[in-house]
């Protein structure tokens, strides 16, 4: 059986009396695209932070690309990257300066070529030499995605990857990420509130509520199981505590 890209066992995170993530188990196959869905406070960002090793779990284990992220995160960090609207790039540096710094941090051997490639891919040419502070929200998101792909990651963790993008650019980015995945075999995990995006990009969906996984399946399977016409209606059922989620949790246990 091939090694999963991510394997999580008994993962919990408590902040004092608050249980942000509660005894979560899941694994993600290599080369897949998985969405982590849930309402605000469901535990998605907390889970992604623990996958990145930025947040230490209260208990449980996290294996990423075959390495225990708690013990050996520096073995896998060069093969990962992420993007999130909660984290910015330095605003007083230009887009090119930011990308050059990160290219060097990730140890790229031909920085000039890589910068040229990502600038072309994300159409950054016209504003590469402008300070990030002066860019529109959509332009900043494109620079952040360029940074997330700068090291050609095997695992890409994306929190709201198309936030602030107009529908046309967002659609283009989704297509680009799908192509990237198809060409490199990378694994993508994303957290999003855009259900259309999830339906288009992901072949697997993990639904979270109150820190627990309450359902999981391919978008079409979930829509069928809940008797709905689209993923947004499934999301609303789960977020409001209607439907099959709790049954799934019991079955999983």
């Amino acid at each position: 059986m091939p090694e999963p890209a991510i394997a999580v066992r008994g993962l919990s995170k408590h902040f004092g009396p608050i249980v942000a993530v509660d005894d979560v188990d899941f694994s993600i196959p290599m080369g897949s695209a998985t969405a982590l869905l849930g309402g605000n406070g469901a535990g998605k960002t907390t889970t992604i932070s623990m996958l990145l090793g930025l947040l230490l779990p209260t208990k449980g284990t996290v294996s990423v690309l075959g390495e225990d992220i708690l013990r050996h995160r520096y073995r896998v960090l060069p093969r990962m990257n992420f993007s999130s609207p909660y984290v910015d790039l330095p605003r007083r540096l230009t887009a090119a300066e930011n990308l050059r710094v990160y290219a060097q941090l990730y140890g790229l051997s031909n920085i000039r070529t890589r910068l040229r490639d990502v600038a072309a891919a994300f159409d950054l040419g016209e504003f590469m030499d402008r300070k990030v502070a002066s860019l529109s929200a959509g332009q900043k998101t494109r620079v952040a995605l360029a940074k997330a792909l700068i090291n050609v990651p095997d695992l890409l963790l994306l929190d709201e990857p198309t936030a602030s993008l107009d529908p046309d650019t967002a659609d283009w980015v989704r297509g680009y990420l799908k192509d990237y995945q198809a060409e490199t075999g990378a694994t993508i995990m994303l957290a999003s509130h855009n259900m259309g995006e999830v339906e288009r990009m992901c072949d697997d969906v993990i639904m979270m509520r109150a820190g627990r996984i309450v359902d999981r399946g391919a978008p079409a399977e979930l829509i069928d199981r809940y008797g709905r016409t689209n993923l947004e209606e499934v999301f609303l059922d789960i977020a409001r505590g209607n439907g099959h989620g709790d049954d799934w949790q019991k079955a999983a246990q």
Partner: protein
Amino acid sequence: MSGTSTHGHDTSIVERRNPPFSPRRIGAMVLRYVYLIRGSWPRIIELAYWPTMQMILWGFITLFLMGHSNFIAQAFGILLSGVLLWDVLFRGQLGVAMSFLEEMWSRNLGHLFVSPLRPYEMLVSLMVVSFIRTLIGLIPASLLAMMLFGFSLYSLGLPLIGFFFNLIVMGWSIGFMVSGLILRAGLGAESMAWAVIFAIAPICGIYYPIDVLPGWLQSVAFFLPASHVFEGMRAILVDGAFRPDLMFNAVLLNIGYLALGMFVFLTFFRSARVQGVILQVGE
């Protein structure tokens, strides 16, 4: 997963080897701060402005006191040396803390710490940047002191190198502790970046000998590397003698300070990972 795709994703340019200590990653962080300083001329001017103003103020105070104090008259430059060397300590600490604060203000820590950058590599880069910032402040002020008051800080001779490094290392150590504390406590504590260092200013004998302090405070001063530096500076300017014992004490204390500073920062960094504040920090 290798070779060039149609989108130019050439994995062969990616260094998968990940040494535990990488001068390249340190260089990347230094580059990041150089871009920041270079991109703003007010920042460059500000680095030199405050040390120069301090030097001018104390230069005129020296001129005034020369006619009223035998002590000052016998050791011209004792106050100017004090103010310029104090600035090494102050700028050394500020160079670390301000550079780290830049990452918090710009909400960039999350990106940095999911890259292969190690926390201790970041500390080394902060030291390098602090060194550059301190020289940008010190050199113009010391040259201006020669032109305006005919006093050369460089007349301290080779010991000046020892004084400089002892003071900047102490500044780095305090800067690490302050940065760690701000990381853990949040930007509400950022004023500590400026304030903490002034708590030791009255004790370390910048402008007066340590023996004017009360006995118990002299004991505290003994454990400050800066006290030994300023006493050593006065020994050269007043007695014309280099005191290797004071230099030795300062070096020994600084080894402990630097280890403690790094330990405190790394402890607060781990605590920040437990509390999940790295993704949350920002303006």
